[in-house]
C-alpha cells in the first residue's frame, strides 16, 4: 500500500477512535441504567424494537468498531505475525467484513419489530 493509503488508514483509525469513545460511554451508561432499573431482556427489546435512534446509534457503533478494529488487526498482523502489507490488508478486510456482518446482524435482532 502507498504511504498515502497508510496515512489514510491512520486517519480513519483515529477518527473512529474518537467516535468509539462516545459510543462506548453511551453504551455503558445504558447498561448501568438498565441494570439499576431491573430491566429484563424483554423490557429492553420492547424499548429497542422499531427504534430508529437505536438502529442508527448501534449501526454506526458497529461500523466504527469494524473500521477501527480491522485497521488495528492489520498492524498486529504486520508487526507480530510478520505479514507483508498486502496479505495483512486482505486479512484485515476479511476481519472487518466479519465484524460488520455479525455486528449488523445483532443490531437487526434488537431493532427489527
Amino acid at each position: 500500500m502507498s504511504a498515502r493509503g497508510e496515512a489514510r488508514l491512520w486517519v480513519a483509525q483515529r477518527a473512529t477512535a474518537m467516535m468509539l469513545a462516545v459510543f462506548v460511554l453511551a453504551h455503558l451508561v445504558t447498561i448501568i441504567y438498565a441494570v439499576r432499573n431491573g430491566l429484563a431482556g424483554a423490557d429492553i427489546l420492547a424499548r429497542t424494537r422499531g427504534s430508529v435512534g437505536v438502529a442508527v446509534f448501534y449501526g454506526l457503533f458497529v461500523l466504527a468498531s469494524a473500521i477501527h478494529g480491522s485497521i488495528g488487526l492489520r498492524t498486529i498482523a504486520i508487526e507480530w505475525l510478520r505479514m507483508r502489507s498486502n496479505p495483512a490488508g486482505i486479512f484485515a478486510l476479511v476481519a472487518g467484513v466479519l465484524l460488520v456482518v455479525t455486528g449488523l446482524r445483532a443490531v437487526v435482532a434488537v431493532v427489527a419489530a
Partner: protein
Amino acid sequence: MDEVKTLRVSVWRGGAEGRFQQFDVPRRESQTVLDVVTHIQRHLDPTLAYRFACRVGMCGSCAMSVNGTPRWTCRTHVDKVAKGDALTIAPLANMPVVRDLVADMREFFDKWARAKGQFTPTRTRHDEFVAVDPKSAPRREADAGIECIGCGVCYAACDVVKWNRDYLGPAALNRAWTLVNDVRDGGQEARLAAVAGDAGCHSCHTMMSCTELCPKELSPTRSIAGLKRATFARAFEEGGE
C-alpha cells in the same frame, strides 16, 4: 560510594553469534560504564572492540546496551545502572553486530537519508540571508529537536523498529521534523511523502521509550506527533504517492 569493590561485568563477545564473557573490574568513584569498558580493553583483554570518541556526551559514538537498556556509556555512571555488583554490556539492539560492542549503524543512518533528513537549499550564496525569528513557532519546534547527537539509543529502544524493519525510527523522524520546521528548506513535499505511512510516523505507537531514554532529553515522540499533523492534510490530496 557503596561497599562494592569489584564489578562483575558480562561483556558480549563475537558477532551475531557469540557469548557473554565475564570480567572483574575494580570499582572506582564516579566510574562510568565507558570507564569500565576501557579498563577491560586496556588491562584485561586488548582484543575487545568498542566505539567511543569524545567521552563527554557530544559525539554519540559510545552508546551500548547496559543491563538491557540502551545508554550513552560515557555519561552513564555505574552507580545509576549496576544491579549490585553486576553489569551486563552488549551492543545496541536493533542493529547488526560488527564485533563485540560495536553495532553496525549503517541502516540507522541510511534511514535518516530515506526520511529526507538532508537540508534542501532554496537560495544561493549570492542571495541575502533568511531572517529566522528565534521566537517564531517553527523555529522553536526545530530547536526542541535539533540537539540530536545520533547516538542510536532511541532506535535501539524502539519496539516498532524491532517489529517493522522498514520503520524509519525515532531519530530519523525527529530529524525530518526539525527540517519540516525549517522555513529555508525547499524539500518539504518529498519529505512529507517519505515520512508518512507504515515506514514512517504513522507506525509510531507512542510508547515513548525513545523519549524516556534519549540522553539529550529530546522528545522524538513529540516530533513524530508533529509529523502526523503535518502529513494529515496530505493524506487526502489527490494524486502523487
